[in-house]
């Protein structure tokens, strides 16, 4: 009994913190989205749901329904995030697999250190570094040219000219998103792969499975919760990102929904619309979170039954 109350007491500061800085703040955004603005173009939140004004919400819904600008930006954001996620997974899974299954002894420590190293440097600083690395005479540009990636991208229509990585390219934004967020995918994936009982894989091999078949039938399904956790951890910040497209592209065709929200809320007369888009993005992310929670619960149940 005492222990139960102790834990409740200890949890209290965290609960209060979350209530103040998440729930109240989020409700404030909702109150603005369902509010109005004054004659100085400043938002006037409507705190009472009975007073809510749906004018701005309808505006955004109508724009999306009629295939307007917000739909364009939402679809582009989905495309960028989906491609960046797929590339991140293709890059991150082998790294996490190697770190969990094959890097033993001091190598294990070195690989782990390498995985957390990017977190030592601020995301914005890492992105700013790429502006120099990807400039026409930057090191990365020269490397991408010498190993043929640049030519491949030009032939695929993903790059407009030689050395033009910063000339407003969508591919550069996706590349930067992958670079920026792939550590967030690798770490949970590593933890998940590291927890897989080696005896499951050995049993598969004993029953005649080839290494590849064993990976497909045992390792991959068992690492699914890690893939999902990594995907959620990377997708959520990617959806809200706006500084990456700003820094490495700056062309309108690279703008993500975060850029629209930033532009609308920072200045001008459309701050309420900015709040509506914030809510719309939150709803999309909520749907993804619900899928993640259901999938992990199902995976947990299956594992228990096995």
């Amino acid at each position, binding site marked *: 009994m005492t222990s139960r109350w102790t834990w409740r007491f200890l949890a209290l500061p965290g609960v209060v913190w979350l209530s103040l800085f998440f729930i109240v703040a989020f409700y404030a955004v909702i109150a603005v989205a*369902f509010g*109005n*603005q*004054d*004659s*100085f*173009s*400043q938002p*006037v939140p409507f705190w009472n749901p*009975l*007073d*809510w*004004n*749906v*004018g*701005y*919400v*309808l*505006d955004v*819904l*109508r724009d*999306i*329904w009629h295939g307007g*600008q*917000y739909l*364009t*930006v939402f679809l*582009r954001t989905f495309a960028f995030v989906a491609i960046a996620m797929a590339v991140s997974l293709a890059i991150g899974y082998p790294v996490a697999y190697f770190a969990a299954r094959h890097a033993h002894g001091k190598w294990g420590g070195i690989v782990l250190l390498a995985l957390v190293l990017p977190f030592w440097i601020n995301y914005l600083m890492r992105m700013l570094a790429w502006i120099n690395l990807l*400039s*026409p005479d930057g090191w990365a540009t020269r490397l991408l040219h010498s190993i043929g990636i640049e030519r491949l991208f030009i032939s695929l229509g993903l790059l*407009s*000219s030689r050395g*033009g990585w*910063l*000339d*407003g*390219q969508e591919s550069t934004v996706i590349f930067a998103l992958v670079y920026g967020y792939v550590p967030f995918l690798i770490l949970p994936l590593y933890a998940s792969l590291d927890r897989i009982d080696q005896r499951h894989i050995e049993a598969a091999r004993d029953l005649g499975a080839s290494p590849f078949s064993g990976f497909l039938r045992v390792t991959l399904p068992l690492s699914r919760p890690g893939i999902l956790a990594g995907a959620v951890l990377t997708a959520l910040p990617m959806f809200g990102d706006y500084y990456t497209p700003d820094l490495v*592209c*700056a*062309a*309108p*065709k*690279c*703008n993500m929904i975060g*850029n*629209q929200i930033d*532009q*609308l809320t*920072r*200045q*001008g*007369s*459309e701050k*309420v619309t900015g709040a509506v888009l914030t809510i719309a993005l939150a709803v999309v992310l909520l749907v993804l979170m619900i899928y993640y929670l259901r999938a992990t619960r199902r995976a947990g149940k299956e594992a228990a039954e096995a």
Partner: protein
Amino acid sequence: MPGVGMPHPRDRSGLTRRQLLQGAAGSALAIGGVGALAGCENTTTPIGGGGGVNSKFVEARPLGPGGLPLPRPDYAITWAITPDNKPIPDGRKPERGPLRVYNYADYIWPGLVKRFEKKYGTKVQIATYNSADEAIAKLAAGAVTFDVIIGLSGSNIVNLLAQQLLLPLNHSYLTNLEKNIWPELQDPFYDRGARYTVPYVVWSDGIGWRNDKLKEDVAAMDVPWDIFWHAQPYRGKVGLLDDKRDALSMPMQRDAMHAGTRPDLNTEDPVIVAKAGRDLEQLTSICNIKVTITDYQTLPEGKTWLHHSWSGDVVGAAIYYMPKGVKPDVLSYWAPDKNGVVQNDFLCIGRRTKSPALAHAFLDFLLDEKNAYDNFVQQNGYIPPQKQIDADLLIKQGLIPKTLTGAVTRPDQFAFNQELLQLSVRGERLWDDAWSKFKAG
């Protein structure tokens, strides 16, 4: 000029609250959203405004947002001085301070601030803002209190006065105003008699380009703005100012130059504003235009070759940002002699200042010729409207190359060009809509 009482362009015509409750609101998607919100209002018409407490400022026709008139060159405004907010009396000694200054980042030379501190035995505390909107919102909310505000312009003055944020000035403390400042800006149309503001720096909107990269002589073109619509060869190396008013007014100027007419760069005509937005949208396919305000770095570094620019940025680029081995005369700048954009930022004193005499001293200090020159040369890049500072002087001193003569704003440009001024709430939204559509790609 439309006022706040006029229908808003995004008012929901024909969609009443009753219809909403009956679920007759168009698409299934909309109905889904509306169902949960039955009983709610349905409007985007701003609340408030229309005179009220603010009308006591008005000496001329009351028009525009906040119940105040919108100043225009052909409709100058003398802002009233109200009994509850009078200038300080003559002859006060500067207070001990500290002096709290609200400014854009890097918009004043720190050496000049130290010079002021030494002269008046005080401390200057500078806080920065990122946009005029942010500054005014924080000032109005009482979140910040400042003695001096630097960097706002004619496009903000109605908001500042409507929200009663400024202290009227006493010119007996501002002897440098008449002595040093261009007569054209001593008595501006947006603040007749300079009752609340004095000018800080000036600039024009124009085209900055690398003359070693572009084959065209932009300044020699019939309509130089056309270069952006012929910029296919420079795809990815072309930039547009990331500011809705400056950017959208560019195609308006282009159209007017072609037609030989005078544009209204503060128009609230939906057709003209929408066309400007569509014209800008063409630039995405023509040259994949970037939307930035970093031309002061990207032009000298060669990351952009052609940029819609503020003249101060190009001057600053030549003085501070040229990479090793690149001479500043690779930069060129053109701005129209007439029917273009010229602007000035002003200095003003916060109504709730605790050091009004010291704040006046600071304003006069910044209007001093040497101080204004040092501020421009050492940090700012934006030219002060001082009588003794002109292009000839700057070229003679080797500060800028001849190719940037046009980037040094002249007093006569204020007579034939236009300032981008505050719009009504309706007008503001029109411009925001067009800008948002363009930026969505």
